[in-house]
């Protein structure tokens, strides 16, 4: 068979080839190293271009749903006001938490850290996500503990989440934690400064529950591999990413400790009605691959045009939170949340509700 041209490869990745041609392309891509490399590159291009296009949705407030007359435009989302904290309140809370942590530390009262992957400190004004302790101790996927300090309670019930009243972290990570809290709560940092109007995504209901939003702090950006989509280079190197910041609701000050993925009940293959950030329209949520994905989350895999589960999405992962399958990427945070109620499946992305159905697929 002749080598594949780029258009055919993209059509195949997009699931737009007829079945017989798709199977020909697939078998050729498997047997021809050059075409296999082109397929891999094309996948990177598809993902990277989706991210770049999604970045266009970052608009100034005046262009994001508020008319010149101050009337919310059609489809504009309102941030939940109930949990809103003023900047001053947030700063005071962060300072008190820091002080408590320092006191506890010097009195030797801090217990050994639990096995944790992430500790993040989030404040409203900075929409920060500061991973303080990363991969402290790898745990088995069956260890399903997550703790959250939530001064402003989550608007949805949160399983695996337990409130705490300090932003100080524990044990050996305390010094780093305090340094990170200081960084996170410094209002003068230009990078950390975010408008209340900024998080079009963070303000969405799905992201206002303690795990959504955009990582903003320098540490979080570093962990997420930078804010911008990095295109070709990223497509080739994203597999090296080791951690992912947990995003923040703009109205929360909290500490999150996640010790492992949970919820293989959502494992399966899904089809979404339209693209959502980097997620392709058809994808598989794997539950037999814990910790191979992003920051200990389960893997998200591509499904090829023949319905076979294909390669892993290198910068995406999923886990079950509050009875929902939450798919996240290092750069964009939460990109899709799937909820199952009986046989009905609902889904929401930061860009709006999505129609998702479970689809058949076969093992690679």
């Amino acid at each position, binding site marked *: 068979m002749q080598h594949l*041209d*780029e*258009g*055919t*490869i*993209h*059509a195949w990745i*997009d699931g*737009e080839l007829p079945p017989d041609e798709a199977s020909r392309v697939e078998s050729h891509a498997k047997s021809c190293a050059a075409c296999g490399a082109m397929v891999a590159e*094309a996948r990177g*291009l*598809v993902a*990277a*271009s*989706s991210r*770049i*296009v999604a*970045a*266009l*949705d*970052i*608009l*100034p*407030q005046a*262009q*994001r*749903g508020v*008319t*010149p007359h101050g009337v919310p*435009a*059609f*489809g504009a989302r309102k941030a939940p006001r109930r949990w809103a904290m003023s900047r001053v309140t947030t700063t005071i809370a962060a300072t008190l938490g820091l002080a408590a942590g320092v006191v506890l530390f010097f009195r030797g009262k801090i217990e050994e850290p639990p096995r944790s992957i992430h500790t993040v400190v989030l404040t409203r004004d900075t929409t920060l996500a500061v991973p303080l302790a990363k991969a402290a101790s790898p745990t088995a996927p069956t260890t399903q503990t997550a703790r959250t300090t939530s001064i402003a309670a989550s608007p949805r019930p949160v399983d695996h989440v337990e409130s705490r009243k300090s932003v100080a972290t524990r044990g050996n990570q305390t010094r780093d934690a305090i340094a990170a809290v200081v960084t996170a709560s410094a209002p003068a940092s*230009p*990078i*950390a*400064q*975010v*408008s209340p*109007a*900024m998080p079009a995504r963070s303000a969405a209901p799905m992201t206002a529950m303690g795990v959504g939003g*955009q990582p*903003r702090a320098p540490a979080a*950006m570093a962990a997420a591999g930078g*804010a*911008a*989509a*990095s*295109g*070709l*280079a990223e497509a080739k190197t994203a597999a090296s990413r080791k951690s992912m910041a947990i995003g923040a609701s703009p109205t929360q000050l909290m500490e999150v400790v996640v010790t492992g993925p949970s919820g293989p009940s959502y494992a399966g293959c899904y089809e979404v*009605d*339209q*693209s959502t950030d980097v997620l392709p*329209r058809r994808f598989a949520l794997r539950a037999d691959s814990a910790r191979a994905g992003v920051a200990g989350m389960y893997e998200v895999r591509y499904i090829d045009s023949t319905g076979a589960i294909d390669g892993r999405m290198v910068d995406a992962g999923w886990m079950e939170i509050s009875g929902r399958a939450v798919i996240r990427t290092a750069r964009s945070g939460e990109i899709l949340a799937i909820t199952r109620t009986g046989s009905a499946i609902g889904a929401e992305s930061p*860009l*709006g509700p999505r129609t998702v159905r479970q689809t058949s697929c076969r093992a690679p």
Partner: protein
Amino acid sequence: MTDLDRLFREFNQPLVRYLTRRLGDRDWAEEVAQETFLRAARQGEIVSERSWLFAVATNLVRDEAKKDARRRRHLELLAQEAKAAEPVTPQLLTIERAEEAASARRALDALGERDREALLMREEGLNYTEIAAALSLSAGSVGTTLARARRRLVEAYEAQQRALKDRGNHAAS
């Protein structure tokens, strides 16, 4: 529920998002979307609704862009003058988010019109047949168009990022 209601409920959101990405202006996008739905109401029966709506919206953007280009340039000048006279206000977006959005916009603008529209339509979930119908392409060429568009977009974006980095390094030294 009338056909117009159904069309609006089903397609308004993706259409406005497509137009917002295309134009970079939500209010303008909503105006064009509304005009598109009004035309759909006048049109009567439409065979392929999604591709028809996206095609009409795309044509409206092209027409309006031509008509308004001069007026917009004038308004931009006025806006710049007004902005220069304003007191400094806090940034609404973080620097890096704003840069990311600006880079994405410039990268998109670097594409040819057809490539840009095909890419944005695909991101809204249109299949190759619908894209071909909306842009008067042959279905067989959509894959090539998208491949070219994606590659150029990513390359243009990366060039922007490199330029920003170089400027940062230069400023630091």
